[in-house]
């Protein structure tokens, strides 16, 4: 009877009102020959206590007690207590998509504030109320660029973009005419000469990541310029924390900015749910995918919020819709809203500075170890790529034995270029201390 209410007496009263003898009689709509003639083969039910013990045992088999220097698109940033507390409110997490504005002003205003905060962070005029995660946000941006430019032939993407994001883009276009062309990297950043060579007047957009997958800082301004000169849109996949110190996408000329928002107060939880951010110039608002919340007034002239521009969506336009997205990542967008509200301009700047300073200290110390070098001589922000003489495997095992996780290794990504296959990523967030970094270096020296 887990979570059910109606007692046998009540069930009987209900059946009497319906005018049937049994629930089975209601189920005769399902032809007998299609009905399952046995119980489902599932594990036996558990009480809350038994389940907690069972889950506890499974969770204990996961090792999360090492100090985390893992990166590659998901980071161990600090999450202020307020976020869990507010996001645990049933009024937020058990609410439905805010189609009934009168019953959803709390959510609608919070999503409007999310949009406004993302605009303040990126420098753009418009943000949607979130997409699935960083990888699909890249694909949605590419489709949006095709609608804006009416060019469906080619999408350029830098090899410096997260290999899994590139893989997602290839999946999304696999049945279409669109060709995904990869711009190679040199010394860890997008090869600008190659970018100029590969772009043409059939190209819908040029996509790059800032800082890129290897941790390196790209010449964003130049890449946006190259796109613009050929009438393509520039799409940047940015690290939200980096904007505490680095130029905003709109300020260096990008047309569309997307991001993985996990850094903004979302727990790691083995890769999801995360948060896809998408912001752009006002000109493209009607070509954007996803939900948009608009400020308006009610019949009494009171300021309020509604889901706006729904006529672009799948429930109206069906096969002509701007995208097939139906759910968004509301609860994660809410967490990002709380995070940005708590951090404010100074908190974002300090977090970014701490990441940058500590990452550089860690890189300086690690590269003092014999046989350990930076793979690229290119400026980086909070993550960098190491090359370890004789391969990374032993190195990582020693780190793990001493209580530290580094990585991921670039060799686990089939899409990463062969020249960097022996690299290993190291991410350093504001959560790491000098003591931890020194202990890591001591263990590996």
């Amino acid at each position, binding site marked *: 009877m887990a979570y059910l209410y109606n007692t046998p007496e009540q069930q009987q009263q209900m059946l009497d009102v319906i005018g049937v003898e049994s629930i089975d009689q209601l189920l005769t709509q399902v032809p007998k020959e299609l009905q399952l003639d046995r119980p489902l083969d599932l594990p036996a039910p558990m009480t809350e206590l038994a389940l907690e013990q069972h889950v506890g045992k499974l969770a204990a088999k996961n090792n999360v007690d090492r100090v985390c220097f*893992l990166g590659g698109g998901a980071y161990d940033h600090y999450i202020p207590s307020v976020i869990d507390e507010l996001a645990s409110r*049933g009024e*937020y997490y058990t609410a439905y998509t805010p189609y009934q504005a009168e019953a959803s002003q709390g959510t609608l205003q919070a999503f409007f504030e999310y949009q406004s905060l993302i605009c303040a962070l990126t420098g753009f005029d418009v943000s949607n109320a979130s997409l699935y995660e960083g990888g699909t946000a890249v694909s949605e941006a590419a489709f949006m660029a095709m609608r804006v430019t009416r060019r469906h032939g080619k999408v350029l993407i830098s090899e410096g973009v997260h290999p899994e994001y590139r893989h997602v883009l290839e999946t999304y276009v696999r049945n279409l005419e669109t060709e995904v062309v990869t711009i190679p990297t040199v010394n860890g950043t997008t090869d600008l000469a190659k970018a100029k060579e590969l772009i043409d007047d059939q190209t819908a957009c040029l996509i790059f990541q800032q800082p890129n997958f290897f941790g390196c800082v790209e010449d964003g301004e130049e890449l946006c310029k190259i796109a613009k000169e050929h009438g393509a849109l520039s799409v940047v996949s940015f690290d939200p924390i980096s904007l505490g110190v680095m130029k905003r996408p709109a300020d260096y000329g990008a047309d569309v900015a997307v991001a993985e928002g996990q850094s903004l107060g979302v727990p790691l939880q083995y890769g999801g*749910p995360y948060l896809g951010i998408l912001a752009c110039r006002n000109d493209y608002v009607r070509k954007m995918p996803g939900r948009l919340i608009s400020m*308006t007034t009610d019949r009494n002239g009171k300021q309020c919020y509604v889901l706006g521009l729904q006529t672009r969506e799948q429930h109206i336009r069906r*096969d002509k*819709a701007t995208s097939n997205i139906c759910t968004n990542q509301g609860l994660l967008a809410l967490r990002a809203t709380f995070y940005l*509200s708590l951090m404010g301009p100074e908190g974002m700047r300090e977090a970014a500075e701490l990441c940058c300073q500590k990452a550089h200290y860690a890189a300086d110390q690690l590269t003092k170890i014999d046989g350990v070098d930076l793979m690229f001589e290119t400026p980086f922000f909070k993550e960098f790529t190491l090359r370890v003489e004789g391969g990374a495997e032993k190195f990582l095992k020693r780190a793990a034995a001493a209580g530290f996780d580094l990585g991921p290794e670039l060799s686990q990504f089939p899409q990463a270029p062969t020249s960097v296959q022996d690299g290993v990523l190291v991410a350093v967030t504001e959560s790491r201390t000098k003591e931890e970094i020194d202990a890591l270096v001591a263990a590996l020296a």
Partner: protein
Amino acid sequence: MRNTISTRPLFELSFPGRRAAMLPDCDVPEQELSSLLPEKSLAEKTAPLPELAEGDVVRHFMNLSTMNMCVDTHFYPLGSCTMKYNPKRHERLSRTHGLGDLHPYARPEDSQGMLHLLYELQEMLGEIAGLPAVSLQPAAGAQGELAALHLASAYFKSKGENRTKVVFPSSAHGTNPASAALAGFDCVQLEPSENGLVDPDDLLKHVDEQTAVFMITNPNTLGLFEKDIAKISSILHDVGGLVYIDGANMNAILGITRPGDFGGDMMHYNVHKTFTGPHGAGGPGAGPIAVRDFLADFLPGPVVTKSEEDGADIYRLTTPSRSIGRMRSFFGNVGILLRGYFYLRTLGAQGLRDVSEHAVLNANYLKARLSDVLPVPRGEFCMHEFVASARQLKDAHGITAMDIAKRLLDFGFHAPTVYFPLVVAEAMMIEPTETESKETLDAFVEAIQTIVKEDASFLHEAPHSTIIRRPDEVSAARNPLLNWQACVKD
């Protein structure tokens, strides 16, 4: 008493110099930022985020939260959305140390507990579907649809066939055609028969050797079981096509019948509907797909596989041999998948069947009690939801489905889904779910009985007691105001 100061727009609460989050001092030797990062990449000033104290943030968002309806406070009879109770144990369990804080690139040997759990979930979803091969990757139901359509295309191409068409009934969820178009297919729409079901004879006229997939929701969006589904499936299979089951309405048939048994070749689940991942005011969801064995090699990866080594079970992340590729980065919406796992382990086989039986009982009870004021044009009985029509009320008294929906908010009930599916005039789609009591359903019926006797002009003005009343959606669409700072500048 409503606190109207704290609910003012967030940016207006900002006060220069105010701080919430404080970060530790830098404990490593500091260097000039301009020596670490290229000068031209550095911001000239900080982003114009609001400046707030921690108390500002807490009070603002706590007060906003009170301006919402939600399942924890209200009955949500929303057709097609399955707004059932979200068990509290799931929230704590999903944050268990070792689950909530596991990095996606933790090595497999450090994630055996998580992989074991996800493997079990794959197995359970395969059994419930009657379709044994499962990928948990898709982030939402609509992404599950897209994955399955790419999969179908890859499957046909592997056989040297280039099929271009996807067929669906006009009552289908809008994501079906949107996903088909995004996957590069031409969409063919089928009109339903008089009884609201797909007519196999009509379907025959619309499918041929160019048809890749027929997408169908069963039970359908009218809450009726497609009784000819076996025949429909064989029509598709006869022309070499595949049958896709939109799993949005799985809540009606758990343990009663299985898509794999009634002819489906592929389906998606909406974990946030059927298996109680909370809706989160729009998401996140999770949209795993289940397919027949002969399609397993094409699934999006990674999937979890199990092997036995030295007498112990070892779990790995594996990409199927002819995989269509990744649908998103990392594994999937694991936090929501965990909630689905907890739910299935709590209920077991009999519990799941009870869920569907009670969902069907509650829906038929509501339908029977409302039938004199809100008749249901099609079907003697329904499954877990039904579509009533306010057409008679509109013709006789000028009362629309929207009027009733809005007025229900005054009675403390969320509005049903209105004007969908399009095949019913003045449609009101009602899904009580199994987690509502007879008392709640009775109170809902009484509210509707009261409303339909009210004056039409009074109803046009409804809701009367909510904090805002009928927002101007037309101007919001014509001249959208999407960003506080832009509004202020204007």
